[in-house]
């Protein structure tokens, strides 16, 4: 079983590595776009996996960190275009701020949220993310509700060109691999052990002498910082920033991706992001197809209501396949995974 699992994951990572080449060969550039989104969400889901999968903290507010990361790019562009501050387009600056600012905000939000537990924690993280959502909607100058189109993307000079889809793709891929490697070291380190132990049994950890709050807080901050990287990539990929990315539904989507792929496993979020976007992309077509097969009429409509199937599908996953895709690969089925 282990071999199948490792093989599958390796295959996925390999396939992801060659997407631009294949897409160019078959002259379907759309796929580069689609898969870039998968990589971006894989990074975001990985960041959430740190606190949710490994740390047991159900954060329903990670869309905010995605949004903050992308607004770094958006705000930089705005001031470069309107106030002539050319340095505000610097790609390295964008990347650095997309890590630092969401990380700091996560520390602030975590500082308050982590003093609570269970149901409270979930709702508070949701509320704070809504707060940021409304705050950015109120910032009319950066697009507010309508969003901001980016005429210029993050500028990396002669090192790479964000306007080139393939280069952006490989930047995303490279960052994903880097993030996965960092997380790998993190979760197996002393620090990681405390965070994982706290998920398993926080009371126990405090009894042996760990002040668990501060470790969870740092984990939360790191999670926000990594999520910011995804936001930075997202802005460059869609060439657009808007508050709709910070809408709480996306926080829910991220949670789904983490659970779908397999919580608390390194590659789970990657599998989850790929799986989720594949479903989002192809479920409508699938439903149309099934509709034709069973001889229904007005099948064009069937595809439009894919979320009606997607919703219950989620419920079923929760009930029967909690270990996610990775769990299935390991031969684990059922609820107590």
């Amino acid at each position: 079983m282990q071999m199948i699992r490792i093989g599958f994951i390796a295959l996925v990572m390999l396939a992801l590595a060659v997407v631009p080449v294949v897409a160019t060969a078959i002259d379907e550039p759309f796929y580069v776009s689609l898969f870039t989104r998968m990589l971006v969400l894989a990074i975001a889901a990985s960041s959430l996996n740190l606190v949710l999968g490994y740390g047991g903290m159900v954060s329903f507010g990670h869309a905010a960190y995605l949004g903050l990361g992308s607004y770094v790019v958006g705000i930089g562009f705005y001031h470069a275009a309107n106030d002539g501050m050319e340095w505000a387009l610097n790609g390295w600056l964008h990347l650095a701020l997309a890590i630092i600012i969401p990380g700091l905000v996560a520390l602030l939000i975590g500082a308050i949220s982590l003093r609570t537990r269970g149901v409270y924690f979930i709702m508070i993280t949701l509320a704070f993310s809504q707060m940021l959502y409304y705050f950015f909607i109120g910032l009319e100058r950066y697009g507010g509700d309508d969003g901001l189109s980016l005429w210029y993307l993050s500028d990396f000079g002669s090192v790479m060109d964000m306007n080139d889809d393939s280069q952006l793709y490989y930047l995303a891929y490279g960052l994903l691999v880097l993030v996965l490697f960092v997380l790998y070291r993190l979760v197996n380190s002393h620090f990681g052990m405390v965070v994982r132990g706290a998920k398993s049994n926080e009371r126990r950890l405090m009894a042996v002498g760990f002040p668990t709050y501060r470790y969870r807080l740092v984990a939360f901050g790191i999670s926000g910082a990594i999520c910011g990287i995804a936001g930075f990539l997202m802005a460059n990929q869609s060439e657009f920033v808007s508050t709709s990315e910070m809408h709480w539904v996306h926080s829910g989507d991220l949670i789904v991706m983490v659970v779908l792929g397999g919580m608390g496993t390194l590659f789970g979020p990657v599998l989850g992001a790929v799986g989720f976007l594949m479903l989002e992309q192809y479920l409508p077509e699938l439903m149309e197809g099934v509709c034709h097969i069973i001889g229904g009429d007005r099948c064009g409509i069937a595809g439009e209501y894919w979320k009606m199937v997607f919703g219950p599908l989620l419920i079923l996953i929760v009930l029967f396949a909690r270990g996610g895709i990775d769990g299935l690969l390991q031969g684990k089925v059922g609820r107590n995974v």
Partner: protein
Amino acid sequence: MSDALTIEGLVKQFGGLTATDHLFLSVTKGEVHAVIGPNGAGKTTLIGQLTGEITPDAGTIRFAGRDVTGLAVHRRSMLGLARSFQITNVLADFTARANVALAVQAHQGHSFRFWRKAATDPRLIGPAEEHLATVGLADRADVTASSLSHGEQRQLELAMALATRPAMLLLDEPMAGMGPEDSARMVEILKRLKGDLTILLVEHDMDAVFALADRITVLVYGRAIATGAPEQIRNDPDVRAAYLGEETGDA
């Protein structure tokens, strides 16, 4: 002061119920002091206040020469007060070795180390394996805690408490749910720890109590109604009435 732990006038009330009623108790350094009492006597509440999970309404607790009454749970562990749980409370998805290693890690400075692998750190694994050996789990080190037998999990509980290098152990019914063989084994392990550590033992298993205790305190409705050597307690009429009941068995 040869007192490891001193409890003075401890009071804890939950609504109308007084769980701890002006309790006075002191534990001498190096002794095994057992606390017994019928159900509802307030033993769990007492442990809760000693460990810091419950805040007393009044009274003081002194340990290691300081007033720890309001001190946070993890800080008491740092001062050298370790506890084992009545209902097994180990990290179920970690191996036995990883469980103990984590307890060792807690007392080796801060854990803001983000890079090196913890599972192969000799500074953690060495002591962890020693403590596992002390409780007799050396050959079960790689087993996931949830797969251990109940008795083995209780042993793991003890190992984790020992791994924090305590001056004093609070054992909350270490024999809970154990059959006679497992209990006897646990008694042997605890006997070997006598003298090096101060132990406050809350237990129902009378054989274990009389085999281990240097002194016994009997708790009834949150008050200590008698404290003394085992033989004294066995023959105390108040204790008999309140706890040991009609049947005295072999005296």
